[in-house]
């Protein structure tokens, strides 16, 4: 009976919603920016704004600040919002409201970020495309999809091409799903940074500098990234030279990296295909720059890696970018592994060992090559500070719970 009541209530609320909701249409033509921007401002809860198929060219950015609305195009290759003549606005489209659905349009050649979402509780980005059409260039905007400080973030069926930082970037957010999406020719394909509870699956990250990044950085309002699952993805053929402007952390990432985990805890990486990555397929590292942030933990812990498929890697290491590839190349004497862990742990753990529950677990095929360094041995000048036996890291997998997000 209770269930039935809830059912009735939801039917009624759907009906109420429909009574109040209106649908607004925008077509290309004179004053298209003003018409679209005004429509976005005047939307009310429950409304649907349809941007009819066509090519729109804008000189100013767009923004949406109304909650519980849908803004949709008529297909990512049909409704094209072009910002190459942009004269003002730091992004193509900025969203600052809650329970918003964006779907079926493209944002092209924004001067800054393509689609930025700040502080939204409930944002669904479905079948959208962000692209810089001139190929990988450091003058391209930083991010394609850029939700930050948001909750219940869904990115599904999207395409991100040419971002000079990350194609799909989720920062300082909670409850995140990124799936069925394609990220190509970006510096980082998909990046989850300083975030909690994310599922990243069924994505293709190829021809980026690096495929998928799970990072945590210091000196930010939200840090301590954890509970991230990366599974059923293809991180393959990431072979684009790093074109990030200097100063950005992804500028340090070597070309030809499949997946990188940096300074997060509770990360599970499984059932992915990593192949064709010229430097390394999977890299697990600490944050290596100095920081005075006492609340920041710079090392990865509780990382579980299992049942992934590894194709060729390490055949074209990028010794020009950052220190990682160079160091790895030297340590491995040119025999680059599929999986690399830098082995860096807090000093006390170097001496006493890591707590069992925090250790890296690698349950992979015997054919998977692996390399890690014992920093103590390395510092003391031992002749063989490296370990390459992946069997030493076998252990019990404790699966992380899947992420459920509120969708609207």
């Amino acid at each position, binding site marked *: 009976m209770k269930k039935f009541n809830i059912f009735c209530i939801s039917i009624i609320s759907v009906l109420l919603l429909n009574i109040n909701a209106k649908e607004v249409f925008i077509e290309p033509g004179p004053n298209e920016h003003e018409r679209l921007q*005004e429509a976005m*401002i005047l939307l009310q809860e429950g409304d649907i704004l349809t941007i009819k198929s066509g090519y729109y060219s804008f000189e100013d950015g767009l923004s949406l600040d109304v909650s519980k609305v849908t803004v949709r195009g008529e297909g990512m290759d049909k409704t094209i919002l072009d910002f190459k003549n942009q004269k003002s606005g*730091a992004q193509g489209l900025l969203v600052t409201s809650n329970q918003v659905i964006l779907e079926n349009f493209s944002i092209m050649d924004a001067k800054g970020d393509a689609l930025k979402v700040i502080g939204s509780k409930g944002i669904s980005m479905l079948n959208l495309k962000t692209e810089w059409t001139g190929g990988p260039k450091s*003058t391209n905007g930083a991010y394609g999809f850029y939700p930050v400080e948001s909750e219940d973030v869904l990115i599904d069926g999207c395409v991100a091409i040419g971002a000079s930082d990350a194609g799909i970037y989720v920062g300082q957010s909670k409850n995140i799903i990124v799936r069925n999406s394609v990220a190509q020719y970006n510096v980082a394909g998909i990046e989850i940074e300083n975030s909690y509870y994310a599922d990243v699956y069924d994505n293709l990250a190829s021809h980026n500098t690096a495929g998928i990044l799970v990072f945590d950085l210091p000196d930010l309002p939200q840090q301590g990234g954890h509970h991230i699952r990366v599974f059923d993805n293809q991180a393959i053929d990431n072979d684009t030279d790093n074109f990030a*402007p200097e*100063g950005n952390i992804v500028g340090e990432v070597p070309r030809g990296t499949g997946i990188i985990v940096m300074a997060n805890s509770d990360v599970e990486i499984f059932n992915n295909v990593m192949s064709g990555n010229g430097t390394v397929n999977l890299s697990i590292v600490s944050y290596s720059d100095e920081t005075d942030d006492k609340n920041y933990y710079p090392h990865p812990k509780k990382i579980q890696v299992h049942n992934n498929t590894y194709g060729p890697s390490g055949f074209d290491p990028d010794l020009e970018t950052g220190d990682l590839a160079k160091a790895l190349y030297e340590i491995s004497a040119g025999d680059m592994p599929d999986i690399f862990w830098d082995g860096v742990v807090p000093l006390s753990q170097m001496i006493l060992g890591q707590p069992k529950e925090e250790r890296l677990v690698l349950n992979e095929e015997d054919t998977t090559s692996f390399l890690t360094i014992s920093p103590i041995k390395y510092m003391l000048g031992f002749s063989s500070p490296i370990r390459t036996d992946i069997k030493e890291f076998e252990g019990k997998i404790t699966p992380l719970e899947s992420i459920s997000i509120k969708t609207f």
Partner: protein
Amino acid sequence: MKKIFSYFFIFLYCSNLYSVNDNLILAESFPEKLSEFEFFLDDSAQLPNEKVIPYELISTLFSDYSYKQRWVYVPGNKKAKYVENWVFDFPTGSALIKTFYYPVDERAPELGKQLLETRLLLRKESGWEAVSYAWNEEQNEAYKKIAGKTINAEWTDFMGEEKTVRYRVPNVNQCKECHDADDKISPIGPKARNINKKFDFKDGEFNQLVYWMNREIIDDYPMDLISPVDWTDETKDINDRVRSYLDVNCGHCHSPTGNANSTGLYLHLNETRDINLGIFKKPVATGRGSGGYKYSIVPGKPEESILLYRMESMDPGVMMPESGRALTHKEAVEMVRDWIYGL
């Protein structure tokens, strides 16, 4: 009977003439025309209603070299409450009014001015709301512009140089982007510390806080108020001048409660931590906004400091602030350059 009616209408007319339209301030939607509020006895001359009081800030936000005139309106017998380190808590029905204009020629005020827009912050029952009215070409009325407007403006500067600018009237969302504090719209300027200066009122020169007390629109202000310095005052310490400038130009977004809090770069007056002020702070999600540099501020090296690079830039994907600026504020850039050089 007819006579009574006509008296009644004359009475209505007169009362309208002399009082602000309080109902419109509180109304759910904004009227089409600025004149409907009756903030001004003469709109095009910007001659304010008796209860609409002009004020100035010690340091102001740069808006493409435009000039600004500000007024405050507090209805009836109400008062705004003093709040420490924050803007006065204005009562429902209050309005903050700001008109932007360029003089035709900065050297010759008698040549008149081009009114661009009048921005309003209206204190409704539910909180503050922001809207802007753009002036028409005839300069006799300003019309509501929900989606903003582009005005190609020109003026002659103090050096006799012809200046042009693609001036943007902000849309309603852009108003919020800067006026956002903890997800609510808030005024930025009228903090007690920012208005603690003399102003030449039509009835004489007074400290603005004293005047506001006398006009009974605020309840209190502290005697030992520490105010920011006027950043243009070269007799003052450069550190104080820069912090004052950064506070009013950047601090509303770059603060823990502002829109840019995710960056960890905080430039409001109360920030004391070097790293959060940008000193050897790495960019987070800056992209090409970094300009290829590694830190927001490198002491002694302005040419390697991202903060200065973004202040100078006119590229929408790089420049700071993100909106409200199309030109570089050369004088401020020089000052910040000197400051970083001396750090």
